[in-house]
């Protein structure tokens, strides 16, 4: 054995090698088939989703507003937005609701640093949402040129304006229509209620790092 070079084993090879030894498997060996994913989607009336969403959302401490169509959105939000510094996402739906035309609203960010500064200073962040889940009162946000990550995160208040047509029953339905979210975005975030903690004495406190106040505006016809 003299003169034989010591083989350098990378941590990757070492770990995969140990796993294969312990499990008695060979490299490249395919797994046994796995049962189809279990998605439970209730066959309920889609018309009920809005009410169910409002119920779940308000139980979490969110406030829901129903607007008949896009022209009702601004009047519904006027007191909330008065005198506040607001950042709105680039979602076209917000523009069609007239939100981006308000003088106190900054929008149209394409630069990360500028967006960060604006969000860090803002009182309110307004976004749309790609979906809303009725069973849990959840907003589903996919990062894209239309929706940045920080608008729903840095300001102390978050408002999501959502067409009713984007309501889904539950997480299970979301995963059935979006079986591989990573093909569309680097970041899909489910937001279920205001930011909260119970780390001190199990006492619930809202708004620890994310928004402590969240609102949903559901637009019936869009």
């Amino acid at each position: 054995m003299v003169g034989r070079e010591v083989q350098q084993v990378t941590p990757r090879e070492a770990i995969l090698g140990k796993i294969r030894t312990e499990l008695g498997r060979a490299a490249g060996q395919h797994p046994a088939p796995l049962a189809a994913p279990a998605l439970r989607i209730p066959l309920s009336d889609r018309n009920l989703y809005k009410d169910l969403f409002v119920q779940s959302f308000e139980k979490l401490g969110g406030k829901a507003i129903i607007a008949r169509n896009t022209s009702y959105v601004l009047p519904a939000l006027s007191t909330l937005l008065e005198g506040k510094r607001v950042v709105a996402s680039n979602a076209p739906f917000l523009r069609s609701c007239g939100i981006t035309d308000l003088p106190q609203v900054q929008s149209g960010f394409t630069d990360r640093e500028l967006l960060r500064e604006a969000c860090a200073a803002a009182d309110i962040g307004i976004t749309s949402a790609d979906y809303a889940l009725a069973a849990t009162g959840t907003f589903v946000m996919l990062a894209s040129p239309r929706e940045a990550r920080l608008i729903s995160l840095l300001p102390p208040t978050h408002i999501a304006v959502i067409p009713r047509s984007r309501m889904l029953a539950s997480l299970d339905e979301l995963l059935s229509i979006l079986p591989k979210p990573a093909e569309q975005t680097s970041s899909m975030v489910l937001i279920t209620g205001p930011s909260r903690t119970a780390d001190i004495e199990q006492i619930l406190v809202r708004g620890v790092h994310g928004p402590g106040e969240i609102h949903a505006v559901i637009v019936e016809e869009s």
Partner: protein
Amino acid sequence: MATIKETVADPRLQLAIYSATQRLIDHRAGAVGFKVFPEYQDLRTLAHDIKKHTIEHLDYYLEQLEANVVAHGGQVIFCEDAEQVTDFVLNLAKQRNARLIVKSKSMTTEEIHFNERLEHHQLEAVETDLGEYILQLAHQRPYHIVAPALHLTRYDVADIFTKSLGVKKEVVIEEQTKIARSVLRDKFLQADIGVTGANFLVADSGAVVVVENEGNARLSSSAPKIHIAVAGIEKLIPRAQDLAVFLNLLGRSATGQPLTVYTSFLSGPRREGEVDGPDEFYLILLDNGRTKLLADPDKRQSLYCIRCGACLNHCPVYRKIGGHNYPWVYSGPIGAIITPQFHGVSKDPWLPFASSLCGACAEVCPVKIEIPKLLLKLRAEVVEAKQREGAGGLERLAFRMFSWMMTHPRVYLMLACIGSALAPITPKIGPLRKWTSQRSLPPLASTSFHKWWAERSSK
């Protein structure tokens, strides 16, 4: 840190542990009952089967995960131990001229003393989960997998904040939270690197899934330019769609929430056109002893754990001795089965015996790990190891004497007589005193069965 004796004798600490775990028990019970969640038992079985399948083909799914992370522009770093993780992070920090790291809660990084290792090299790593932040300031390790500062009161927190942050004494929890928010907000905005753990690694998507309530994991993964996720190799699930099973179980089992406030599904750095998010994404896959758990098909189950903490809350031993009296960062029943497997059964041989085998842990485990069965297996291994080392002679002698006594009726009767005569005082002296300091012994019958039988037959 309080010892077992001190913990048991401290009424304030006992109350803190009991009430916090009871609240978590109640929250879970309200979320998994048949009326509110009829699918619960079926999902547990499914979750067990999916984890079993994944662990049995771990190498395949790890390679699939790796390929998908790379396809989305991220990098995967396999690490065998703490040192390799630190080396990678230090190297990257040096190359990028990074100084400040914000961290969200991760048991895997606790396991390898991530923060302390980086601090040795003049890197600041700040915990941002409120509970973890308090503990970092107090230089303590987590008391509980899910509620890390469960043992501290608002008064403890006030003292810790005053001492470490120089703020005036503040005992209102809302205000304490605001103090932490404002200190940590600056850190988030200044940080060069964000480090998160991972609750799940999704093989078919090359994605990391992080669940949380505060928003600190979202901030850690999206505010800095570099995101590093550190995860144990066992965190894998095959498909994004399997999350329907696991997310429905995790939040409910941990805190009674159908979904936690934030669930982040992250794959790679930000993409073309996305306004914000990290420019670089690294996934560190850590072994640190996990491969040692694979050999035995039963004990392998320990790797199914999704760290919900339900077994801790329901464990009569955890609820008495608290989290700091377990030898490693993982406490409670799950700690009692994984610690001996990571460190060897001889290191803390008492650990698998610190259980009443009541079975509550197995009953509430969302992935149906047979914890009591594994405890028994580990107990047997402890005994075997002792015998190999030639120890346990005294115990063998005791059992030999016991069997001799039990097979010699005259000796037995004589000793029984002495025993019952001494019964009133034995609990107060000798080895029994320890046992009876926390429990009451049922009184012995005034007449022995033998005597009663003899008298009854002679009538």
